[in-house]
């Protein structure tokens, strides 16, 4: 039996094509995935991301707990509302999940974790809590729905849909969050565009969705979300990284703070393990479509595509691939595309940012 978000009825009303996504019945598209992609690049679209799980960490010592729990340094968060992207590692340095953590006060941090990892994340955090901070409270917030409003017109349309949010949220910088009544409004996203991720109580979610619809925000499915995040060069858990690889193998070195005396779970392993793999961007030079798990052949040895798709913005195919260290930007590599060797260029990613092609 698939789980339903509070917006499931709205998706049925809109004739969405629904699929099983990590045990949730979620919209893959509402007609055309490519149109939805372009709407987010040029206007404003919204995604039901209520399958993701907000988790509140409350109590004295919350910061000290997070200092040990996550690979990025929680002490980068010093102003109220500031957000941080990070991996949570196990002792072997593998990625348990990637998440965003918001600093709301010294006794309240909010994490948002992936739907498919939510149960194991909670068990993992609970086990660490017992060891490190038995008096902290870790509370999964299944009572909250989350809607991502993304695109260059997201801000204007959010104000139009929710009068009263404007004064507080208008001056909000990217990667910050603010609480407005029952809403938690964060200027974050997974598309490479300006936008917001807004959490509201489950009961309010269909009304909020409807208000956004009436303000001209177009519903978009998880299909467009995937091509948008790939163009934006953002990793997807379970594809680009998992428990078998480290952040260094996954293009996420920038999210790990190895400096100073701070110890965190997985740090020893990261110091010990060889760094012989890297994540690179690929742009296909021949006609075809790159897909996850295709083999990549380089002068330094074999690698594998972790995410690949057609890029609607670039009108060609792009991918993220894990390849040996030594492969450089500008190199030409070969990819086994359905039995044929095709040429691809190693390129810098993100591929697209704020509506503009970068490769």
């Amino acid at each position, binding site marked *: 039996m698939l789980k339903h978000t509070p917006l499931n009825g709205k998706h049925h009303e809109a004739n969405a094509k629904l699929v099983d996504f990590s045990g949730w019945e979620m919209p*893959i598209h509402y007609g055309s995935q490519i149109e939805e992609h372009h709407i987010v690049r040029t206007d404003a679209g919204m995604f039901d991301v209520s399958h993701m799980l907000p988790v509140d960490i409350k109590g004295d010592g919350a910061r000290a707990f997070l200092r040990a729990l996550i690979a990025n340094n929680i002490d980068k968060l010093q102003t109220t509302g500031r957000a941080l992207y990070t991996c949570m590692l196990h002792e072997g340095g593998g990625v348990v999940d990637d998440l965003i953590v918001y600093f709301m006060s010294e006794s309240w941090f909010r994490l948002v974790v992936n739907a498919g990892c939510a149960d194991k994340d909670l068990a993992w955090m609970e086990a660490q809590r017992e060891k490190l901070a038995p008096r902290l409270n870790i509370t999964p917030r299944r009572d909250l729905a989350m809607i991502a409003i993304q695109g260059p017109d997201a801000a204007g349309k959010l104000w139009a849909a929710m009068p009263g949010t404007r004064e507080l949220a208008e001056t909000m910088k990217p990667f910050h969050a603010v609480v407005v009544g029952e809403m938690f409004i964060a200027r974050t996203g997974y598309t490479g565009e300006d936008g917001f991720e807004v959490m509201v109580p489950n009961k309010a979610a269909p009304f909020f969705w409807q208000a956004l619809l009436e303000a001209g925000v177009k519903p978009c499915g998880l299909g467009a979300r995937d091509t948008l995040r790939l163009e934006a060069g953002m990793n997807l858990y379970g594809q680009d990284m998992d428990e078998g690889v480290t952040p260094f193998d996954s293009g996420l070195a920038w999210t790990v703070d190895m400096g100073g005396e701070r110890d965190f779970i997985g740090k020893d392993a990261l110091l010990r393990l060889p760094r012989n793999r890297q994540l690179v961007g690929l742009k296909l030079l021949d006609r075809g479509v790159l897909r996850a798990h295709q083999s990549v052949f380089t002068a330094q040895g074999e690698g594998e595509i972790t995410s690949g798709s057609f890029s609607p913005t670039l009108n060609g195919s792009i991918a993220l691939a894990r390849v040996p260290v030594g492969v450089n930007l500008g190199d030409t590599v070969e990819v086994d595309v359905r039995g044929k060797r095709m040429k691809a260029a190693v390129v810098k990613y993100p591929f697209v940012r704020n509506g503009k092609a970068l490769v």
Partner: protein
Amino acid sequence: MSIPADLKYTQSHEWVRLEADGNVSVGITHHAQELLGDMVFLENPTVGRQLAAGEECAVVESVKAASDVYSPIAGEVVAGNDDLEGAPEAINQDPYAAWMFRLKPANAADLDALMDAAAYAAHVEAEAH
């Protein structure tokens, strides 16, 4: 569901139209394009290639996935739709106008073995359960 009565169909969701010159046009059905979503790429068999019935001979790729296309009957490839290769989204917009390739049948009677619209409708229905 859109299943024209004047076409023949395969279990693997190709449609087949008998043209006036005795050749047949082949495409993928409305149901197939709906399952695959937005089309972004296709690759046709080369002209002159001899195909057996059921032989894997072309590829359509949507944003979501790649899918093989099979030859509905035995025959020789006499044309590929080059316009469609440049605009694969036409498969989504009008799947029964978007022919992919044409075959000269090895045996015209082979068409009779394919499904008619009613049988194909039942096949799609059965696959959904």
